[in-house]
């Protein structure tokens, strides 16, 4: 995920898929699905929503790839689409925590939906995720303000460049660097205390 060549790999798959290569389309869509799931789960914290976001992103990605004009921009398009799907999904829920709705702006210490996840007994999907990610990191991550968590997930876990993160988050590169710096310090404190 951290490979700087990931963007180029995506672009190559997009080019092949766009001209009718089914194997390339299949690989591209599976990767996009996994991206949608990871992002939705880590940033927003609801496994059931992550499944829905994954499904919603699938058709959009398929249609987008067939008429894409700039394969290099696919990756930022995908994260922007997934981020927006997450936002729409959560806005449909009654009683949505304000912290999530203000995902892009504000550094409020909402804690977000992930905070509630650890408080409940784990459902099967949550158990799967619990086994997937190291618990102390998951617990530290959920304490970050949502807008910081989004930056950490995209920059550190998904391996996007600062420029790409800025584009998806809709802020300046300087702002991304500032949020990432603060988020790292917060995470370090939480991990040290764990």
């Amino acid at each position, binding site marked *: *995920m*951290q490979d700087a060549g990931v963007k180029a790999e995506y672009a190559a798959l997009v080019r092949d898929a766009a001209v009718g290569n*089914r194997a390339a*389309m*299949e690989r591209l*869509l*599976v990767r996009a*699905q*996994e991206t949608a*799931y*990871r992002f939705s789960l880590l940033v927003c914290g609801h496994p059931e929503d992550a*499944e829905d976001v*994954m*499904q919603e992103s*699938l*058709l959009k990605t*398929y249609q987008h790839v067939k008429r894409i004009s700039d394969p290099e921009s696919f990756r930022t398009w995908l994260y922007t689409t997934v981020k927006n799907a997450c936002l729409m999904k959560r806005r449909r829920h009654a009683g949505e925590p304000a912290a999530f709705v203000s995902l892009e702006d504000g550094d409020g210490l909402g804690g977000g939906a992930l905070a509630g996840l650890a408080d409940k007994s784990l459902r099967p999907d949550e158990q*799967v*995720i619990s*086994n*997937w*990610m*190291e618990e102390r*990191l998951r617990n530290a991550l959920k304490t970050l303000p949502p807008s910081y968590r989004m930056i*950490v997930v995209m920059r*550190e*876990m*998904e*391996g996007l460049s600062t420029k790409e993160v800025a584009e998806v988050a809709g802020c300046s590169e300087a702002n991304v*660097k500032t949020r*990432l*710096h603060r988020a*790292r*310090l917060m*995470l*370090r404190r939480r*991990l*040290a205390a764990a």
Partner: protein
Amino acid sequence: MSESVTSCRTILTDISAYLDGELEAAACQAIEWHCQTCASCAALVSGLRETVGLCRKAGSTPLPEEVRQRARDSVRELLDRESKKTS
């Protein structure tokens, strides 16, 4: 004392750029020299390096097989459906 504090503040400001390899060699060297004599900054650099490493390791860990299988199934179902439409 104030010079030491200033140096520690500089470390705190520059540490992310340092970890991301965005600082010039001279600035990196200054941080490394400072950390040789400042235990708290050395611990901070080490702790942040570990934090970043932990995040990156999590990011490169494949999703659970159950999730990946559902993704593959959904994709094949969509492609089969779209293929029938065009044939």
